[in-house]
């Protein structure tokens, strides 16, 4: 999803529903004196981190347990790697790599499901591991 903001109020965009309470004000990392308490996720590098991942691009599926994903930049390409099943997503940015990984995982799920009765031992193991994370709605 991509939007272009052309007009904002002093408080940001108007919100029609009740606001969610924030734990702290917005943290700005570009100030000369950064705030004392910065959430751990904001201290990370988006192209060199290990994160929990449960992005679901397919409405037929739901992610029941997050994957551990390693995001890394190599020679100008960002990779998102699930070591557990050795699957990758690629992109020029981390968000693209993660989105690509989510599509790959959903395609893999349906491909293995459709051929579940004739999988090799290696693919059967991947199918079992995938089922620990993803299920049909």
């Amino acid at each position, binding site marked *: *999803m*991509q*939007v*272009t*903001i*052309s007009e904002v109020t*002093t*408080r*940001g*965009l108007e*919100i*029609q*529903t*009740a*606001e*969610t*309470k*924030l*734990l*702290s*004000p*917005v*943290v*700005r*990392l*570009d100030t000369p004196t950064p705030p004392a308490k910065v*959430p*751990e*996720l*904001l201290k*990370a*590098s*988006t*192209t060199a981190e290990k*994160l*929990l*991942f*449960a*992005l679901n691009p397919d409405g037929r599926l*739901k992610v029941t347990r*997050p994957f551990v*994903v390693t995001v890394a930049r190599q020679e100008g390409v960002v990779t998102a790697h699930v070591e557990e099943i050795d699957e990758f997503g690629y992109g020029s*940015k*981390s*968000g693209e790599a*993660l*989105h690509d990984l989510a599509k790959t995982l959903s395609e893999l799920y349906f491909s293995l499901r459709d051929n579940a009765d004739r999988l090799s031992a290696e693919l059967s193991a991947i199918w079992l591991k995938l089922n620990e994370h993803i299920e049909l709605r």
Partner: protein
Amino acid sequence: MTDAEGEYKFTVRIVYLGEEEQIVGGLETEGVTASDRLGVLNLALNLPPVQFPQFGRYEFQLFANNVYIGRAVINAVKLEAK
């Protein structure tokens, strides 16, 4: 959002998508309770003024209890005076 049940703390990371990605800010919510997995959970985050240091693309990454669940991309464009 749907499929949520229980207590969640949401985190938003604002990432500048330049040659090198850079986290320029973000926020954390207080605990939000989702009582019905089949229901809809509205998350309404009113961002106080956030400075976008440069024109270009920015990504808002959304995490629920430190799990990456989605993103949205915006363009910060310079409006030319007519």
